[in-house]
């Protein structure tokens, strides 16, 4: 999926981001940081949706457990405010993975739209707990975090925090890239294409899907930890259905099965939600329209545009073959 040239393009763009971002206005920097955190969540979802063919509508649940863990440790136990921040990162990932391990037992038996529904239900369970379990989660007040950690460097500094988040983003991207290029990742793609065939070939497809789900949960938890520190507040509103839908949107918009597509989608959606919304009041038309048009005409997402243009040119007017479309066509929707 990624040729040498594509990797260079991506690397260059990321480098440009790293160099120029701190010079942008304070608000734009927070938006970019925001987008990067969401990008981690989107990429974890891409592993499920784009590579394994599992459409999850409950990814916000893992963000939630990571975020709430961070908030509870920080405000109730004063833990995670210094070097222990790194421990919290690890714990957040572990909790995300553990939650996915639990949820996966219920969810992985389903495929297609049934998987969609059950992950939605699981996401709602987490929301319900966050909203009503007052003694632990603070109910709808949420939990306010103490100021960001300091360990030699102060994360309270926006530029520093941006680089830390950027670092985790790169780490996630690299790790997931290695995973999807490995035999394990290839198997996932095979499952996405035709699970029956993989099973006949002797692969334990359940186990592969389950592991993918757990890995996605771990990175979702990571996103959650960073999310909590970024906002300084964790609230049940962070884990509502719309968050999971947004994550799905980001992957589909950017281009499923490409990893970096999720990041592009995250950038676009964050920009629309948090910036365009303050400039014009009809921003949701743009969001909805971009989404609908992408589904209809760009199955490969925004990142598929160059390829589409190339193919269109090559065929001088005709429609070329599409990339990353197979993720959708292979779904039969059977449980």
């Amino acid at each position, binding site marked *: 999926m990624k040729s040498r040239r594509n990797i260079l393009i991506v690397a260059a763009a990321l480098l440009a981001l790293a160099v120029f971002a701190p010079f942008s206005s304070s608000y734009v920097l927070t938006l970019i940081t925001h987008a990067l955190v969401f990008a981690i969540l989107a990429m974890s979802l891409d592993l499920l949706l784009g590579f394994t063919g599992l459409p999850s509508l409950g990814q916000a649940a893992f963000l939630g457990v990571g975020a709430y863990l961070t908030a509870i440790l920080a405000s109730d136990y004063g833990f995670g405010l210094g070097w222990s921040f790194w421990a919290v990162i690890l714990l957040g990932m572990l909790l995300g993975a553990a939650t996915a391990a639990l949820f996966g*037992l219920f969810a992985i038996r389903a495929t297609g739209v049934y998987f969609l529904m059950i992950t939605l*239900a699981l996401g709602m369970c987490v929301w319900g707990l966050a909203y009503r*379990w007052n003694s632990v989660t603070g109910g709808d007040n949420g939990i306010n975090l103490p100021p960001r950690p300091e360990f030699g460097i102060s994360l309270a500094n926006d530029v520093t925090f941006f680089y830390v988040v950027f670092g985790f983003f790169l780490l996630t991207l690299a790790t997931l890239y290695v995973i999807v290029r490995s035999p394990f990742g290839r198997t996932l793609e095979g499952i996405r294409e035709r699970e029956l065939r993989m099973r006949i070939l002797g692969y334990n497809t359940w186990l592969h899907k389950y592991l993918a789900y757990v890995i996605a949960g771990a990175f979702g938890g990571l996103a959650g930890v960073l999310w909590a520190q970024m906002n300084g507040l964790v609230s049940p509103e962070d884990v509502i259905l719309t968050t999971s839908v947004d994550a799905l949107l980001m992957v589909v918009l950017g281009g499923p099965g490409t990893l970096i597509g999720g990041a592009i989608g995250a950038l676009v959606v964050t920009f629309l939600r948090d910036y365009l919304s303050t400039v014009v009041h009809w921003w949701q038309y743009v969001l909805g329209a971009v989404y609908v048009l992408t589904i209809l005409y760009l199955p490969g997402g925004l990142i598929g545009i160059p390829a589409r243009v190339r193919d269109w040119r090559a065929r001088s007017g005709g429609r070329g073959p599409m990339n990353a479309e197979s993720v959708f066509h292979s779904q039969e929707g059977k449980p």
Partner: protein
Amino acid sequence: MDTQFWLIQAFNGISYGALLFLLASGLSLIFGVMRIVNLAHGSYFLLGGYVALSVIWSTGSWVLALPVAALVIAGVGLAMERFFLRPLGFDPLRQVLLTVGFAFLFQQAALDTWGGDPLNIDPPEALTGSTVLGGVYFPIYRIFMISLAVVMGLLLWLAMEKTRLGAMVRAAVDDSEMARGVGIDTSRVSMFIFALGAFLAALGGAIGGAFFGVYPGLDFEILPLAFAVVIIGGMGSLAGAAAGSLIVGLADNFGKALFPEVSYFTLYAPMVLILALKPTGLFGRD
């Protein structure tokens, strides 16, 4: 907790379930025939309420508002199916995602048309107040909700079991390839079912407007409930939708009354369990 308590709570749960039936039966049918999970279903519910309000504002008639709102939204559903979902071909996942995009568009359109204020649909004088039976007060509007849901349920069942169109729908649900093989125009059936689903949801919204109110955000708030019904009851089954709405209505009601701290959990946890044990739901088939 005397018998009066249980009686009233059961009655309340059933009336809530009646509203959910209207909302969820359409979702269930759409899935049964087209294998699409319509994430814009909550939007149909909300838009039904809004259109009903517009009708009431311009004509003053609540009785007229209900069918008009339902038909208008049925038209919207029809258009959505015909012009956007059909071109995607049989691609359930992409179709589902498309409905999400529409949900956002509908949300913005509703905001621009009716504003951001929460609104109420006032039922006619005759339906307000309560009757008293054996010392227990039964609000008349709730009785109306239950009656309407029962009537609609019966009509739907009759249509499905006794009419030719219903037979075609059932054939398409059971095995769409086979249905096409015997000459049933499944794309026509799909269009009809989608419009019917939207009709029912909008009707639910117009009725629920007196109950929940009509306001931005209601679409995404009501959607998980519709899912709960369809998941528990079984997708594609009318009996399932009825059973599911009853269960969800009662569970939600009793959950809030008896275990308020975990009331949302008592709703979604059984959903997960049922999905885990029987992914197609209680009455679902596959």
